[in-house]
């Protein structure tokens, strides 16, 4: 099925998720949609699947306009979507999951199990999706569960199949198998949209590639015309490179000294495996790494949210290993958490309450038990002014603010008392460029006041824009600590991907690559 998106625009408060996107996918084509997190890939596909309605633009299926008000409409029109997070009933069998919602029913409303099983078996044979219709979902490995999701879409006669980051959850052999399946799916009339941010896969599977950045299509190419380097440049987009004016750091004595720290995750896996590093006063140390390499747990251990298994954390020379968050707060640690909605704010509380969330029991905000509401409000008004938080009033609920302004509330609260050490986790994830630049300037200003800054970021651009030193974490170990001058994009990128240091030096090409946008 030929799918055309024309001028699709979708705005969320504070963010333009899709900005006049044009996309055309032909029958029998595997079309890869490439882009970083937050580039608008998922929003675009959710629009096609009827989950969101676009503010502007139109969708044509084989030339006919589609006005999907819900996924049910989109499915009826022949669109199938395999989400990143599977939508399966774990205790049902494969066949039950596949027919759920479109059960073939007999004369008395009974389910024709046999017919359903037969169709599932036929489909899985035809497309090489080896699945036992009788198996229970929870007993199946993730790769097979994904096949069930694909079967679900095929069972509903999907003629355009959207695969949202299908390889994110798979092991390498499963990925290879999936690649073969995707090829077969794009036979005849059917088209496949393959969403990914992994360059190699896209080059291996796609007929056509469209690159999305900041909600816009910034490039369109085919695997024959391009390579990994060119795609990476297109995806990251050097034209929006974030430049922060900053003088060289003048580091002082160590504020934070981590020695041989070992931390386990919720399942008891050893995810931080003997990490040692230092953050000195007046410098920004970036902890660079691909998501899920232990940095989340490391930061939790440093901020008192997760007890380390062994090793030590020294803060201003004092051993603070295993201290609770409130003691660390009083010792001068400020922390901007990774998940701001969950850990940083109380959405139903006012902006002014959120600005004193960790200081309500301190003077001048309260005396004994009594809250001084005047002092709280005055403080809030000053911070809102100083940090340029766009809110109708300090009495508005935090949940009514845009993402960028919510983050500014947290930044304002934490920066206000950050006088020794500031730990920032993904401080600009999902924010618009203006907010990102503002926050970056504030971080540098704090550094220049002599505060030690630990920046945990998986955005390479952010790491390179802010860091004085870069510590690269891979599988729970620090695989390299580089001064900013040594830390080229390629070298850090390769270290993040797990390449050993010697290899990195040999392979790293010199100079910045040109941006090729067609």
């Amino acid at each position: 099925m030929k799918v055309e998106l024309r001028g699709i625009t979708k705005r969320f408060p504070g963010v333009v998720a899709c900005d006049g996107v044009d996309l055309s996918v032909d029958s029998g084509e595997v079309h890869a949609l490439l882009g970083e997190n937050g580039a608008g890939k998922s929003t675009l596909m959710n629009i096609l699947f009827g989950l969101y309605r676009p503010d502007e633009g139109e969708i044509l299926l084989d030339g006919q306009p589609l006005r999907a008000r819900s996924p049910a409409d989109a499915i009826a029109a022949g669109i199938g979507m395999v989400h990143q997070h599977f939508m399966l009933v774990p205790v049902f069998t494969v066949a039950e999951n596949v027919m759920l919602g479109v059960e073939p029913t007999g004369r008395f409303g009974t389910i024709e199990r046999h017919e359903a099983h037969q169709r599932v078996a036929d489909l899985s044979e035809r497309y090489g999706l080896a699945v036992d219709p009788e198996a229970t979902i929870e007993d199946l490995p993730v790769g097979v569960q994904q096949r069930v999701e694909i079967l679900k879409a095929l069972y509903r006669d999907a003629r355009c199949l959207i695969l949202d980051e299908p390889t994110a959850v798979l092991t390498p052999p499963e990925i290879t198998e999936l690649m073969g399946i995707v090829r077969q799916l794009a036979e005849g009339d059917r088209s496949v949209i393959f969403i990914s941010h992994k360059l190699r896969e896209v080059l291996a599977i796609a007929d056509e590639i469209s690159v999305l950045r900041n909600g816009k299509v910034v490039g369109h190419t085919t695997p024959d015309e391009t390579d990994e380097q060119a795609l990476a440049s297109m995806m990251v987009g050097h034209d929006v490179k974030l430049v922060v004016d900053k003088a060289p750091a003048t580091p002082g004595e160590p504020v934070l000294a981590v020695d041989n720290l070992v931390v386990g995750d919720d399942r008891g896996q050893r995810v931080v495996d003997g990490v040692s590093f230092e953050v000195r006063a007046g410098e920004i140390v970036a902890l660079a790494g691909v998501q899920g390499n232990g940095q989340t747990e490391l930061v939790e251990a440093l901020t008192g949210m997760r007890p380390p298994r062994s090793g030590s954390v020294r803060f201003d020379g004092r051993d603070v290993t295993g201290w609770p968050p409130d003691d660390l707060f009083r010792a001068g640690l400020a922390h901007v958490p990774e998940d701001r909605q969950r850990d940083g704010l109380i959405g139903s509380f006012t902006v002014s309450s959120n600005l004193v969330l960790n200081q309500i029991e301190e003077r001048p905000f309260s005396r004994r038990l009594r809250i001084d509401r005047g002092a709280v409000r005055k403080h809030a008004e000053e911070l809102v002014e100083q940090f340029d938080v766009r809110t109708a009033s300090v009495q508005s609920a935090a949940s009514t603010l845009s993402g960028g302004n919510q983050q500014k509330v947290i930044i304002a609260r934490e920066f206000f008392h950050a006088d020794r050490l500031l730990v920032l986790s993904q401080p600009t994830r999902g924010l618009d460029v203006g907010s990102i630049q503002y926050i970056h300037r504030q971080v540098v200003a704090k550094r220049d006041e002599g505060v030690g800054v630990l920046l945990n970021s998986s955005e390479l651009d952010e790491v390179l824009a802010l860091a004085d030193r870069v510590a690269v974490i891979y599988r729970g170990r620090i695989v390299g600590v580089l001064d900013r001058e040594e830390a080229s994009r390629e070298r850090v990128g390769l270290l993040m991907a797990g390449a050993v240091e010697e290899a990195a030096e040999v392979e790293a090409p010199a100079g910045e690559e040109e941006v090729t946008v067609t």
Partner: protein
Amino acid sequence: MTVTDAAAPPGPSGDGSGAPTAAAKPRPLAWLGSLGNSLVVPVLALVTALAIGGLVIIFSDPDTLDSWGGFFSHPGATLSDSWNIVYDSYKGLYTSSLGTQAAIGRTLVEATPLALAGLSVALAFRAGLFNIGATGQLIIGATCAGWVGFTWDLPKAIHLPLAVIAGFVGGALWGGIAGVLKARTGAHEVITTIMLNYISFYLLDYALRTDAFQRPGREDPISKAVAESARLPDVSFGDIVMHAGLFLALAAAVVVWWLLDRSTVGFRMRSVGANPFASRYAGMAIGGTYVLAMLIAGGLAGLAGATNILGRPSFSLTTRYYSFIGFDAIAVALLGRANPAGVLAAAFLFGVFRSGATGMQAATSTPVDIIVVIQALIILFVAAPALVRSIYRIRAGRGAGQTFTTSWGA
């Protein structure tokens, strides 16, 4: 001196009953609008419940039901019969709960423990805890207050306060058990408080058969009577006669309001209730907050038990009577939107139902159980605001669930 005055809050106060947040632009005097808004659903729930209750009354009266058999021959008579039975029932309800000063006194006495236990559930709710255990905390509170009341012999100035305090402490410790279990082991408070209800009930049942409690010469489980010196004094305004427990309830409502909306402790409790993750990141002790909230909640329910045994004419403990207060308290807290002023208003309404039910039965032979049906319907509609809104075609109010915006309004 009526409780309804208290329906207007002492100040703009918050509402933690996590309804979905609607984006709202704050306006000057927004709290007035949001007060109106937060009253819309409970009031419509009451009206709807009374209307459906009216239908139930019609169908539960054999004579009226007979007249429906002849609906097509005498439609007018059928409808007027139906109207009359409903009208007479609700009139009986009104007369015997609010119609006379004596009736108002009875209503206020009924409302007193409901208000205290309702505050208990509301406070725990704001801290993110569902206290199903008001019943058990109330039983233990009444038992402790009663024991102090009939065992010791002290001057009134000491004896009464001591008995009241014993009630508070007993309830607090009993509630605290659930708090500690939650903080230490993560055991869900709904399960533990329900189990503690059973334990407290059978503890009382056992205690009432021991010499320390059982009234001499009685075979049934009933305690000795509380000494004169530990009884709550009667208070009267004209013919409105009640006991001083009402003032305890009013004072408790003010304290709970202040604690929740004006104190650091309440800030912490609301914060943990609204988002334990962010609270933990902000350095708050989640477990400690749960324990504290359950201690205070248990204490309030214990006070409810204390006013009951120290204030109601029998002045003695039995195994009957207690369980309904604890469960009605959940309804009162829900209807009052976990807001102290709202809880007082809701407790008054439930007091009306309780004191009016028998009068209604006497006047029309409409069974008392209808009242339970109406109460249940109110809760159903309050718990499902979307239902009320769709019946009356109201759009989600701009203040709905948003009242934290105003809880700090200055």
